[in-house]
């Protein structure tokens, strides 16, 4: 497995210039995620319009995988309903943790660039941190910060 499969151009690009990297002043919910093992930290800001995630952004610092994953996630989830977001979480979870992904990657679109992470077990948590944080904030709005360790 080549390093380029992990650090695909899309990932390097989203790490260098993360999308939706900002605070939402009037966010409906915010939540911090933390990976103590590598020090990755992110804060997710989410704006709900009824059942729809009308805006989603993040701030924080982390490795390229965690920043790119968060950036791609905000891009993808913005405008979706809570149910759709939860469905995407399940898909991503399978993509990153299952040995045999037989499900087709089509519905994931650009998010599929993260599939290389599966080959690097110590890095899976970097890619899932933002997703776990999102799931948590959707399910339990008043929760303490997520930790992937």
């Amino acid at each position, binding site marked *: 497995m080549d*390093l380029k499969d*992990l*650090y695909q151009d899309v990932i390097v690009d989203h790490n260098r210039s993360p999308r939706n990297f900002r605070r939402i002043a009037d966010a409906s919910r915010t939540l911090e995620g933390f990976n103590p093992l*590598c*020090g990755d*930290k992110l804060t997710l800001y989410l704006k709900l319009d009824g059942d729809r995630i009308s805006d989603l952004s993040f701030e924080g610092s*982390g490795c*390229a*995988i965690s920043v790119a994953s968060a950036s791609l996630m905000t891009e993808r989830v913005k405008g979706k309903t809570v149910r759709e977001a939860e469905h995407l979480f399940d898909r991503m979870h399978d993509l990153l943790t299952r040995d045999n992904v037989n499900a087709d990657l089509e519905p994931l679109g650009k998010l599929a660039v993260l599939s290389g992470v599966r080959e690097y077990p110590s*890095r899976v948590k970097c890619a899932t941190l933002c997703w776990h944080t999102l799931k948590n904030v959707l399910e339990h709005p008043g929760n303490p910060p997520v930790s992937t360790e």
Partner: protein
Amino acid sequence: MSARHDRLRKLAAVAAGFDALRWRRDFPVLWQRVHGKPLVYLDNAATSQKPQVVIDAISGYYRKLNSNVHRGVHHLSELATEAFEGAREKARHFIHAATVREIVFVRGATEAINLVAQSYGRSRFKAGDEIILSEMEHHSNIVPWQLLCEQTGAVLRVIPITDAGELEPGACEKLFTSRTRFLALAHVSNALGTINPVKDMIACAHEHNVPVLLDGAQAVPHLPVDVHELGCDFYAFSGHKMFGPTGIGVLYGREALLQDMPPWQGGGDMIRVVRFDKTFYNDLPYKFEAGTPDIAGAIGLGAAVDYLEHIGMPAIEAYERQLLAYGTEQLQRVKGLKLVGTAREKAGVLSFSVDGIHPHDLGTIVDREGVAIRTGHHCAMPVMERFHVPATARASLAFYNTREDLDALVRAVGKAHQVFL
């Protein structure tokens, strides 16, 4: 200054004759390739590799001697006891303790520190008593004291560190008060590599009648250690960081102090007579060794001591000093690389960050080049906070590393630059 100069000259002369590749051949793990590249193992501060003699000592014990110690009259039990106690004598000699009664076998540095906190500290400290630590301690020399503080109401005082990663000068005098009861300090920092001026610190503490524990986990693999000369009251270290097995370590304690301390765990071996109305504890060091010990581990540690003494700790110190200087120089040339921890006296550790590349990515990329380093907070989160970094990359040395290993690291960091260009 000229004394230091003189010492450096002598060290350089010893280093010149050191044949690291000769010793490297003794470590089977280092013969392999990783991701198709020769393994370059630079994660020795996490755990060191084991020479064949240590592996043989452990398997030899299980093949020929296995038996419980201190309790059988049969042949094997006598042989096992002899080998186990022989290892204790080797450990004593290694750190120049006065007697084997001062050598307590534990699981490692962590357990040694917990033992001192719970036995020495808990029986003595009261609310408002102060325990001094430094900002560069490993979590294992912080959390046991915090637990003790919760139990007794004692409080922690922290010696700050400078931008270079040295203890703030003069902090010692400033922090000691009439309430100070204990000083617990790293001999060598695992995150920064700083060799602390422990003799001065001990002198200062003893002037205030305060006992000192040194966390020697990162010192014993790199420097000759003489607890008698240092004058410390307790010294803790782990076997696995000094080329011995995991699961075994040593707490050295001055006999008079250990004598007065209550046991911290109860069970077999630590008693002399057990009756339901009263139990009499065993002599030192057994009072602190409840239950069947890690017999094979102790024997493996003894073999590691023999091996290190055969090479010679002064030679190892001299060689590694040059290697560290070389590594420092090479890394400083790398674009965007910043060393974290630039103390004047250092051992074994090159902690660094690279602009625009997170340490975690760096670790993955250099691993693909066969180079094993650690990335993260190195169990020293206060140090990361002090230097305002989420994590660092850390290359840590042993005497079997060479300049070529450090060249491989520098090339591998270059690959990381390519990925993120």
